[in-house]
């Protein structure tokens, strides 16, 4: 079968007698970047919809139907919602949840925001410590920190012991198993995240407004209150909202810290209910839907605030650095604060975990315990089944999901920021949606979806990759969106005027300029996926072990010692990746975003 000439797109239209419109369309498409944009828009929206919609559908379905013993969908019901509200009628858990999430959001923003301000806007010595702490802390798996702080601050822990002797009290001085304890630990966990996001915002602030205020004779604190804080409002609000959502749906801290102290929140209530057999996911589904509604309202509010906020922002392509505030004598006080923060966040929990890793069983720090030191835990940890496989898999997954998310969200952000296409709002919503799923719900939804659709990725690393990419899209958006906002569109326009194609412009203008936020987001997602647990725990197969699940299994079953040893090893690997990145970023003068 000989083909006379290669197929040309015109042929079809020639035959169909639609020569001119077709020609015009193709000519237009070839010359004008906006139609490339349309194509990109369609592609990006389809990919995002494919990732996000199945879990959404599955959540709504689970919340509205009972399941048979075999897990099949059975009857339509509203009972999960009414149960949820009868659960709410016992107002306690709901109030606790609100206190807990608000408290954590506020305290985390206070911690992270203060450090971000000190690091970006003042002449505090040792400012680099802020970035280092933030990156390094991302490396430590969540559960390790929590155990570390519980051992430190627990009733029999060293802190209470010292306080007891100091104040000659008989009982423990601090009760960590309380609402305050929960808020304290949760906000510490989130503060590096706040720091990274607010540091970026502080940096991109136009100093001319502050200078103008100072020129008008305002004092420093007046400028801060009336100008700087107002400029930062959208950023603050966005961070507060994020932490609020995450704390609202978090389970680990309420379970580990709240339950022993009888502080019950919605997630722990649902967990206790879900202990029944046969398992019912309806209440978890209904809870997710409720959460989505709450978040949707808050997001609406947020968008209104930021729309106002954008009028304040005068972000252009001009190079400037915000003025550095001279703290004078307070510099050393600020440095002390920074060091304390790094110590509490990173050093102390790591030390106590390190301590535990050398002991056959956990003993409170004391001199005579040193005599029991052993390396046995490390030997066991290294011989943990498939440890090299799980490390390899976790790193592969981190690389894959970070790259995929950043490319996808760079394109999506470009569409959101640069184009005025209709239907942008849809993409906006699609890329925000994953934020609303509790991890376990998304894990189950993805599991069920890929068991039914004939795409053979069940039991492979691909299903984990898809789950991670879906979950981390909103984080990628945060980075790329704010990065793109900082680039003035005139740079792109200049490229188009000079005859560059869309892909050329993307490759040679946007990507290089976006490197800092791109890499910042990349690393962030890499570290997040390296410790992701709630989805992985359902999606791993015997052939695809990952580190976080291995650590979780040790936590569930083995002793603190082995867990600590494995945790120490994994933390060292991740911290060295973070340090490499940090050095790289400094070497090439990349501003961390």
């Amino acid at each position, binding site marked *: 079968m000989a083909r006379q000439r290669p197929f040309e797109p015109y042929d079809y239209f020639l035959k169909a007698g639609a020569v001119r419109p077709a020609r015009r369309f193709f000519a237009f498409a070839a010359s004008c970047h906006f139609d490339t944009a349309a194509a990109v828009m369609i592609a990006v929206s389809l990919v995002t919809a494919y990732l996000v919609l199945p879990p959404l559908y599955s959540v709504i379905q689970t919340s509205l139907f009972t399941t*048979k013993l075999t*897990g099949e969908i059975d009857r339509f019901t509203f009972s999960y919602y009414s149960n949820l509200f009868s659960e709410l009628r016992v107002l306690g858990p709901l109030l606790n949840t609100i206190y807990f999430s608000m408290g954590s959001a506020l305290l985390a923003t206070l911690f992270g925001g203060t450090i971000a301000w000190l690091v970006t806007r003042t002449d505090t010595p040792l400012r680099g410590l802020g970035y280092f702490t933030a990156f390094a802390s991302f490396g430590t798996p969540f559960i390790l920190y929590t155990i570390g702080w519980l051992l430190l601050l627990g009733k029999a822990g060293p802190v209470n012991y010292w306080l007891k002797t100091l104040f000659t009290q008989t009982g423990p001085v601090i009760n960590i198993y309380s609402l305050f304890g929960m808020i304290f630990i949760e906000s510490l966990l989130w503060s590096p995240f706040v720091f990274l996001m607010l540091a970026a915002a502080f940096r991109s602030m136009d100093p001319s407004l502050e200078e103008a205020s100072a020129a008008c004779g305002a004092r420093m604190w007046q400028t801060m209150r009336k100008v700087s804080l107002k400029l930062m409002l959208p950023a603050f609000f966005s961070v507060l909202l994020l932490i609020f959502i995450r704390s609202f749906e978090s389970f680990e801290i309420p379970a580990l810290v709240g339950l022993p102290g009888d502080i019950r929140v919605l997630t722990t209530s649902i967990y206790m209910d879900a202990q029944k057999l046969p398992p019912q996911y309806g209440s978890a589904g209904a809870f997710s839907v409720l959460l989505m509604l709450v978040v949707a309202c808050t997001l609406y509010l947020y968008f209104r605030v930021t729309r106002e906020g954008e009028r304040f922002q005068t972000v252009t392509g001009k190079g400037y650095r915000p003025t550095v505030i001279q703290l004078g004598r307070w510099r050393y006080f600020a440095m002390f604060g920074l060091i304390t923060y790094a110590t509490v966040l990173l050093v102390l929990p790591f030390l106590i975990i390190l301590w535990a890793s050398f002991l056959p*069983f*956990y003993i*409170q720090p004391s001199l005579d315990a040193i005599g029991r030191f052993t390396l046995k835990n490390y030997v066991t940890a290294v011989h943990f089944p498939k440890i090299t496989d799980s490390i390899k898999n976790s790193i592969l997954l981190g690389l894959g999901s970070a790259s995929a998310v950043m490319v996808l969200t760079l394109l999506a952000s470009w569409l959101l920021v640069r184009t005025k296409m209709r239907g942008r709002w849809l993409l906006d919503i699609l890329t925000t949606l994953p934020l609303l799923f509790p991890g376990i719900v998304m894990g189950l939804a993805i599991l069920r979806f890929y*068991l039914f659709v004939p795409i053979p990725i069940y039991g492979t690393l691909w299903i984990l990759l898809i789950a991670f990419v879906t979950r981390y899209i909103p984080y990628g958006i945060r980075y790329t969106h704010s990065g793109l906002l900082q680039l003035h569109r005139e740079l792109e326009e200049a490229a188009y005027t000079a005859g560059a194609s869309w892909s050329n412009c993307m490759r040679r203008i946007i990507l290089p300029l976006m490197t800092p936020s791109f890499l910042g987001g990349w690393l962030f997602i890499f570290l997040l996926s390296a410790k992701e647990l709630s989805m992985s*725990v359902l999606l791993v197969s015997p052939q695809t072990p990952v580190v976080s699940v291995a650590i979780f299994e040790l936590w*569930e*079953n083995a*002793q603190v010692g082995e867990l600590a040893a494995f945790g120490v090893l994994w933390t060292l690997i991740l911290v060295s990746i973070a340090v490499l990145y940090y050095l790289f970023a400094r070497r090439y003068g990349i501003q961390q975003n």
Partner: protein
Amino acid sequence: MLKQIPNLFVRGLLSLTLLAAILGRQSLHAATVEEVALMNRADRQKILVEGAKKEGKLSLYTTLIVDQVVRPVKEAFEKEYPFVQVDFFRGNSERLVQKMMAEYQAKRYEVDIIDGTVSPTMVRRANLLQRFFSPVLAEYPSELKDPQGFWGSTNLYFFATGYNTRIIKPNEAPRTYEDLLNPRWKGQMMWSTSRGSGAPIFIGTILNTMGPEAGKAYLQKLRTQNIAKTTASNRQVLDLTIAGEYPLALHIFNHHAFISKTAGAPVDWIPHEPVTATIQTIALAKNSPHPHAAMLFMDFVMSEKGQKVFQQSNYLPAHPKVPAKQLDLKPGGGRFKRAYYINPDTQYDKGNEWVDYFNNVFVK
């Protein structure tokens, strides 16, 4: 041309995989799972071995701890039958059941054997188990096997109270359930919320052994003791006891306390008669893809030889002729006489009631 190679290659590979999957599935279902499972004839072993050689592997969904016992059992079995490779997936009961049910709904039959204190019963209610026959079952007492042949058992768990020996002297430790009501222990105790090994099972034992009336009266008194709760496993509760956070750990496994004590930890266990016991059951999946290998595995783990592997791992073998490595961990070994065995069906049927009771009475 060159550009097409990867594409062709990938396509070829995909279709080959598909073909292999289809063929593989057909050949495995040549002899039905039921026939293999219920086979009871003189040359059973020979047929199983021949079949297993063709199957080459089996897949086990297990709740047992990988380091402590799954790997030793796997090694021992693979030494006995070198042509079968054991793949395992470890998770708690709920997770195993979730996974198996999701797979069966999608008609993906990956699992051969499922174990756990309650997971086999759960999947049995969903009709996903196959009855089986094994000659070794005859060596077990009736409470350790299913009358209809849906499950056998591999090991037993006995619950006890763990205590920190630095904080509580052995002669002060609570000996009986009544002793737990002593005001001295107020705020000093912790238990796990776990359905299969925590507070709900404790409640079940009390209600069944004391009777509903007296049992509820006791539990109402116990409630005022402010027992701390955690969703972590009872192994974690024991660790907190060793660390001194909560000097008394309610309802922990006695062999966990023993293992830690042997390592030098300041901890010991006290039984409260009658001691609650749960049974680790093991069962065959309805559409087991490797039934021959699976039956060989079942025979092996329940045989005296397989049970010795559990014994060496400091687990408590179910086989009546295989004692615990540390004798006093099993009833009649010197530290306690009576055990109250909670049958998996009871645990399933009554479990929701116990969970509800726990949530209503003990959770604020």
